Structure formats: structure tokens, C-alpha cells
């Protein structure tokens, strides 16, 4: 255990049912699964990149972390959504604990690592890095070293919600290729006991190309020329995985994991249009064209609740004494939540069919609730619909996305496989918070007493 090496290859949004469907074309993943354990991994609530990766690597749920999205309320004012950076994570993540124990760590592109922390090793920060002029590596000298070898670091694919699919294909391949190239370099040149990389490529690919292969997708066009592109991309990823693993010492433990999966997006619910229809939200001037809610003057004295857009829907209640111009009496808060949850649960599409919305209060989801969560979490159509925060849509059901073409939503289960231990076979019931204690146990380190996950055996 003293000399143990652990490698985590994170593939953001890799969908387990697609791995299963195309497994015979994915020899490297297949080998890891056959030589180890594998299964679906239940993501966080909500199942989105931030907080999912931080929950995975700390072992604590979003409630404990106080992270409910990549932007969270910093206070009870109306416009104080603060970005979730590395500094927002107050719990130690695996690499912090390993660094404290003298283990060498190398991290590449892991979400929520900007600004980079001091670690016992090397770190290149992830997706929410402002731009390449930022200091995105630890130590600082690593940045120029990588630029010398690989050119400018690609933080993300530009404008992935686009109809220019040819450009998008080219850019996602370039993005993933560079990250695997850097990974091969770091894994070869640097000293490490724990190596972890996350490639955001699969997430961008699903959002950009899901409708082309999925015949159940409402926008699917039979016989389109991109119908095989997602499978081809999975094959490409498997190839890069195989190339990378050839550079890893044979006895290493290999973990391939995704933070959530993906599913077809059936449409969007313009939640603020719905709230206006129901009399919960009032605006001073209804916009003539599609306009984000934050750019609209809200009549707070007449507003009981408002919503935010995203892959899941957040409802905030305008509470008297809490929000600056609150109107819902704190004594009526519970009843009001019950009323609005009841209404949302009965929301119907234009054909009169129930959309299948699922609502939660933060206390329903988490052992601990830190920070300022939304008052209600809503999985529109149980995540088959996106939340559209903008107004000017015209109705509350829409098949266009206010932020550009996007044909996939997140799903609750990601992919997990681990080889290099004695264990074999399928594992059911794996939770995303189980990964951190699993890694610590591989190094013979006790997890913190209050950690929410348990080691996967």
C-alpha cells in the first residue's frame, strides 16, 4: 500500500447505457470492467458538474458542501449569485488529504480547482478558469512548461451550443486530444502517487450531438450524416484511454468515472413565464424578445417567487424580512412551499399531459444544509426538460433553448469502473460520495469520521 498508485480518468457526463450499448467497440473500457468492478454511480442532487465532482472527491453531499450549482446565493439579495470556485469548497478533497500525508498528486482539468491550491505535486485547474492569462497551474512554473510543449491550454470548447456542428466536432476533438496529450506528458514526466484528470469533452459532445443518434429524440432526423458521431467519439475516447494507460505502471489502480450521465432533452419549461401565469411573479415591463430574467425589472412588491434557468430549476421565495423586498410572511412559508410544489407537480404540457416534475426542499435531500440553497429544487420532467429562466418565450413550454441549441440533459447515473484491486464484478448502489473514501482506503488512509460516502469494495 506504501507504493500504491491510483489513476482516476474522469469523463464528464459519460453515459453508462451508451458504454453498455457500444462496449464491444470499447476494448480498453471493457478490459477495465472485466478485470475489476463496475456499475452505475448515482450522482449528486442536483446531478450537475459542480457540485458533482467536488462531492465525488470530498465524500460530502452538496448540502454539506453548500454547493448547489456553479453559482450560488451569497446572501439574500436578488442578484448575489456567487461563482463556486475552488475556494468555495471548505471540505478537504482527496488530493488535500493525500498531500497532507506526503503523497504526490497530479491533477489535470478537475472541475472546481480554480484558483489552484497548493498541493504536494502539480495541478492544472479546470473548466471554470477565467482565461489563459490567469494563473491556472500550481506551481506557477508548470504553466509555461505546458505552454512550451502544447501551446495555449484549451480551457473549454467555445460556444458549444451552436448549429455549426462541423466546427464543434473539430473543437471537441482538439479539446479532448490536448487534455489526453497533457495527461500522457504529466503521467510520464511527473512524480505521482495519485493522478487524476477530467475531460469535459463527453459533456460537450452529448449537449451538441445527442439528437443525431437517438431515434427517440424529438428533434432526431432519420438517416442524418452525424448519426454515428457519438459512437465514434466514444471509440476515440476509449483509444485515448488505452494510450494513456500504457504509460501507467501495471500494478496501478485505474478508476474511470463520470459525474452524471445524459439523456435526450424533450424541451424546456420557461419557469418564470409559468410563475407569471400563476400570479407568483410580476415584472414591470414584459420583454418583447427573449430576455434573461436578471435583465428584467421585477416588481418585487408583487412577487412571491422567481426561478433560475439551467439543467435543473431553482425556485426562490421572496420572504418578508429575508429578501430585501420580501412579501411572503415567514409564518406562511411552509404553506406557500406546499402550494407551489403542488402546482409545479401538476404542471401539464400543451397536450394536457403531466410533465412529470419532481420537487424537493433542501431538507429532503441532504443530511446538512449549508450556504443558501434554493427554496425548492425542481427536476422538470424528472430532468427530461430544461429550465429556461428567460422571459419573452410566449408560453411556458418551449422547444428552443434560450441559451442556444442543446439536445441533451443530465441524468442521475454516471459510469464507474475500477481495476487493479482483488475485486471483480458488477456493483449496484454506488454513490458518487463513495469515490473519495474508496481512494483513501486504497492508500490505507481513514476517511474523515463524518464523511457521507463509504469505500467501494
Amino acid at each position: 500500500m506504501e507504493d500504491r498508485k491510483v489513476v482516476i480518468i474522469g469523463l464528464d457526463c459519460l453515459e453508462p447505457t451508451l458504454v453498455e450499448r457500444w462496449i464491444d467497440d470499447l476494448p480498453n473500457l471493457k478490459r477495465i470492467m472485466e478485470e475489476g468492478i463496475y456499475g452505475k454511480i448515482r450522482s449528486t442532487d442536483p446531478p450537475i458538474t459542480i457540485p458533482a465532482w467536488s462531492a465525488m472527491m470530498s465524500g460530502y453531499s452538496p448540502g454539506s458542501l453548500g454547493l448547489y450549482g456553479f453559482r450560488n446565493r451569497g446572501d439574500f439579495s436578488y442578484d448575489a449569485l456567487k461563482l463556486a470556485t475552488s475556494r468555495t469548497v471548505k471540505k478537504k478533497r482527496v488530493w488535500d488529504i493525500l498531500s497532507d500525508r506526503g503523497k504526490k498528486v497530479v491533477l489535470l482539468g478537475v472541475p472546481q480547482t480554480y484558483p489552484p491550491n497548493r498541493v504536494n505535486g502539480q495541478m492544472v485547474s479546470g473548466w471554470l478558469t477565467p482565461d489563459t492569462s490567469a494563473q491556472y497551474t500550481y506551481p506557477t512554473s508548470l504553466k509555461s512548461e505546458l505552454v512550451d510543449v502544447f501551446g495555449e491550454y484549451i480551457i473549454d470548447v467555445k460556444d458549444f451550443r451552436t448549429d455549426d456542428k462541423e466546427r464543434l466536432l473539430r473543437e471537441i476533438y482538439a479539446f479532448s486530444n490536448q487534455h489526453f496529450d497533457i495527461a500522457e506528458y504529466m503521467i510520464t514526466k511527473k512524480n505521482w502517487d495519485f493522478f487524476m484528470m477530467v475531460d469535459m469533452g463527453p459533456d460537450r459532445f452529448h449537449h451538441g450531438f445527442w439528437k443525431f443518434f437517438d431515434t427517440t429524440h424529438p428533434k432526431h432526423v432519420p438517416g442524418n450524416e452525424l448519426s454515428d458521431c457519438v459512437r465514434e467519439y466514444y471509440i476515440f475516447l476509449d483509444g485515448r484511454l488505452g494510450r494513456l494507460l500504457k504509460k501507467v505502471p501495471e500494478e496501478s489502480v485505474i478508476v474511470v468515472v463520470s459525474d452524471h450521465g445524459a439523456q435526450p432533452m424533450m424541451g424546456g419549461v420557461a419557469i418564470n413565464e409559468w410563475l407569471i401565469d400563476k400570479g407568483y411573479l410580476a415584472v414591470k415591463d414584459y420583454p418583447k424578445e427573449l430576455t434573461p430574467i436578471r435583465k428584467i425589472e421585477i416588481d418585487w412588491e408583487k412577487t412571491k417567487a422567481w426561478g433560475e434557468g439551467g439543467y435543473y430549476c431553482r425556485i426562490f421565495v421572496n420572504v418578508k424580512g429575508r429578501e430585501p423586498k420580501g412579501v411572503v410572511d415567514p409564518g406562511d412559508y411552509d404553506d406557500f412551499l406546499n402550494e407551489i410544489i403542488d402546482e409545479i407537480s401538476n404542471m401539464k404540457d400543451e397536450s394536457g399531459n403531466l410533465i412529470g416534475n419532481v420537487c424537493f426542499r433542501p431538507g429532503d435531500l441532504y443530511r446538512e444544509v449549508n450556504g443558501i440553497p434554493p427554496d425548492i429544487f425542481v427536476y422538470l420532467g424528472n430532468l427530461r426538460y430544461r429550465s429556461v429562466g428567460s422571459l419573452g418565450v410566449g408560453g411556458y413550454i418551449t422547444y428552443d433553448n434560450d441559451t442556444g441549441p442543446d439536445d441533451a440533459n443530465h441524468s442521475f447515473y454516471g459510469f464507474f469502473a475500477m481495476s487493479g484491486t482483488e475485486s471483480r464484478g458488477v456493483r449496484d448502489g454506488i454513490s458518487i460520495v463513495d469515490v473519495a473514501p474508496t481512494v483513501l482506503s486504497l492508500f490505507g488512509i481513514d476517511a474523515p469520521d463524518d464523511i457521507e460516502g463509504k469505500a467501494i469494495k
Partner: protein
Amino acid sequence: MSGSGKSTVSEIVEEVLRDAGYKVEVLDGDVVRTNLSKGLGFSKEDRDLNIKRIGFVCNLLTRNGVVAIAAAISPYREVRDYNRKEIGDFIEVFCKCPLEVLIDRDVKGLYKKALAGEIKNFTGVSDPYEEPENPEVTVNTDLETPEESARKVLDKMIELGYVDIERLKSAIGTEDEEKIKKRLEDLGYI
């Protein structure tokens, strides 16, 4: 003295250090007097006891890796020097501001009451304030912005090796946040 900017400067220093990942605790004079030193008055003995208690807690915190910021009126040199010796990794910040400016500011309306004799033992009016002879940092809060004052404190902490400059440099700033928001807008997230 009251209104000299202790809490304001402390809050900025606290935020920067927290952003850089440090554990920080602020012992604000007003808060301490309602908890740790509840019942103590404003005689010299009680004031000294109050500052010694704050120093004691700061010592416990600093030896456990927490940056402790005491933002309290501490009028007597002797007890400040006592805490300096007890704590070791110590910076005395003199929030310097002329009395007339403080009277003019009078954020809490205390100077007016003190000058009218309604508050006894008021530092700088009816009680002495012994200016530090060799403070590590002097901030002129009538001439500087709170950010400039906080910068001086942080620079001294870096100079003395109490905090790491690389760690502070890597803390996210407003400019970074704006850039990230712009990127998220470009990516269609917001």
C-alpha cells in the same frame, strides 16, 4: 479608537485570506464584549482584562493555524505589549485617525454622547489612548481607502512570512469573476 476603521479593514483582510484558503477568525470588540467579556466595564483594569482575554483566544487560534484578527479598542501600551510577547506571530495595526475626523464621522453617534458627558470612560475623549510607539503597521484611515489599509496589513503579513504570497496571488479577484461570468455567458450557461 471608536470609528477608526478597525472592523472595516479587518473584514477586507479576512475576506482576502479566506479566498486564499486560510482559516480566519475575527474577534471584533463589540462582539467580544457581548460574549467573552460580558460584564466587564471600561475601567483600566477591565479594559486590560478584556484585551488579555482576546489575546489569549488569539494565541489559541494562531497556534492551531488559524489567522486571528482582533479588532478591538486597546488603549494601553502595556497590555498590547503583553499580548505581543504571548502570541509571537503578532502584528500590531495602528488605525490612526485624528479625533476631529472621528467626531465628524461618528458612525454610531457615540462621540456626540461622550462629548456631552453621557458616556463615561470614552477612549480619546474622557479616557486616554496611548498611541503605539512601534506598530508593525500604521494605517491612516482618514487618508487611505479601506482597501489600501488592508493591503498594508496583508503586505506586512507576507513580509513576516505569516501568509504565503503565492497563495494570496492565486486567490480569485473581482476581475477573474467577471471573466468567468463572461465565459459562462459565451458558453450559454447564463
